[in-house]
């Protein structure tokens, strides 16, 4: 078996450079690569293009990179809940490309599956369709959307093994598996790193072939964005 383990976040992101294009897994603050983000802030790389469904909040997630003005462009489906983001956007410091959430997911999947483009009806007849090829199949219009081309994918899993196999927990799965398949170099951080042979091959969500580097992250905060509860009777 091929060993993918690196010592930690700093080593994992060692070759992420100014101007790199990154995919970052997660939905809101759920399932985000916390340790990789901390390491990127520490490293101080600039002019990053970040493909991520959301942009974090002011003091957590990608928001931390925005505070340090490390992000040149965000490609996301929803970027609310972030005052610094709004400030940079309105001042022109930050470029934003908003794309439908399903299109975002499927353009990742396309890269992972070696398909240069896919067809989706999302955005037909809207400004999202501007400049894009429209094609009719069986009476319905679809946009042709291209596979993403990202230098690195940073994903967060629950468990991983030394061979790079990943298992996600609950809805923290979200974009992580499709981004893991799509990065030229995929870096996985996990809450628990185990020996190859520990995970049931039938339970693996992301086969190790997609993962180039894996490490066990430290001190997961796993912040909750909207704590909603119901009273006990």
């Amino acid at each position: 078996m091929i060993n993918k383990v690196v010592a930690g976040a700093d080593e994992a992101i060692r070759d992420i450079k100014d101007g790199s294009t990154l995919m970052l897994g997660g939905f809101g603050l759920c399932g985000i690569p916390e340790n990789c983000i901390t390491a990127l802030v520490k490293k101080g790389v600039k002019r990053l293009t970040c493909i991520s469904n959301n942009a974090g909040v002011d003091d957590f997630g990608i928001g931390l990179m925005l505070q340090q003005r490390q992000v040149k462009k965000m490609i996301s489906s929803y970027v609310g809940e972030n005052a610094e983001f709004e400030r940079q956007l309105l001042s022109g410091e930050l470029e934003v490309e908003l794309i439908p959430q399903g299109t975002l997911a499927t353009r990742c999947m396309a890269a992972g599956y070696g398909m240069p483009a896919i067809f989706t009806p999302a955005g037909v007849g809207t400004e999202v369709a501007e400049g894009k090829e429209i094609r009719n199949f069986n009476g319905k219009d679809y946009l042709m959307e291209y596979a993403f081309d990202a230098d690195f994918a940073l994903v967060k899993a629950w468990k991983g093994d030394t061979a790079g196999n990943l298992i996600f927990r609950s809805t923290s799965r979200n974009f992580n598996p499709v981004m893991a398949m799509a990065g030229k170099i995929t870096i996985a951080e996990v809450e628990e790193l185990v020996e190859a042979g520990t995970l049931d091959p039938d339970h693996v969500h992301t086969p190790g072939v997609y993962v180039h580097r894996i490490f066990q992250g430290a001190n997961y905060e796993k912040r909750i964005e909207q704590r909603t509860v119901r009273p006990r009777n």
Partner: protein
Amino acid sequence: MLDKNGIAKRIAKEIRDGYYVNLGIGIPTLVANFIPDGINVVLQSENGLLGMGPFPFEGEEDADLINAGKQTITTLPGSSIFDSAMSFGMIRSQKIDLTILGAMEVSENGDIANWKIPGKMVKGMGGAMDLVASAKNIIVAMQHVNKAGESKLLPKCSLPLTGVNCIRKVVTELAVLDILPEGGFKLIERAPGVSVDYIKQVTAGRLFADDGAPEMILD
């Protein structure tokens, strides 16, 4: 005139046994509270869950288990988890029977605008464009008029569109309206105490209410 819960309650009557349903943020989320007994429904959350349950009891919140509104939730017996590509795959392939979402404007040919106001900070369309482009059955839950008192049911949307020719039904605090295949809003039911004339007054798009429309029965 209905309050938000009233709108949700009326929409809940559109749900049939065996439906897979996607609920948007806001009033649509409330619909889950009014699903009648004996009606088995599975709620999809587009971040990757089928079988969304209620909010957790205090102290049982799980950071790894949220809905598309980023709220902590629970699973139910029979739930399943999947990635975002599969989630939107099942939306595109029309496995979801009913989608309920809010809107800023709906036009008489079924166009919807609900994601962007020029000149204001745009947060993004999230999954709305995928949902409206693919769902076979979409109900809009919204107020009949905006804060400025202007009708949100229009001949043509003035805001940037989310999707075209896709909405089939609108439920507001005043009325239930179908969107006709040939265009136009057909008044189906009036909220208690609301007159046809008043609905006509606040509906800017073509309104068909020739044979009147009954008052809705909510219970």
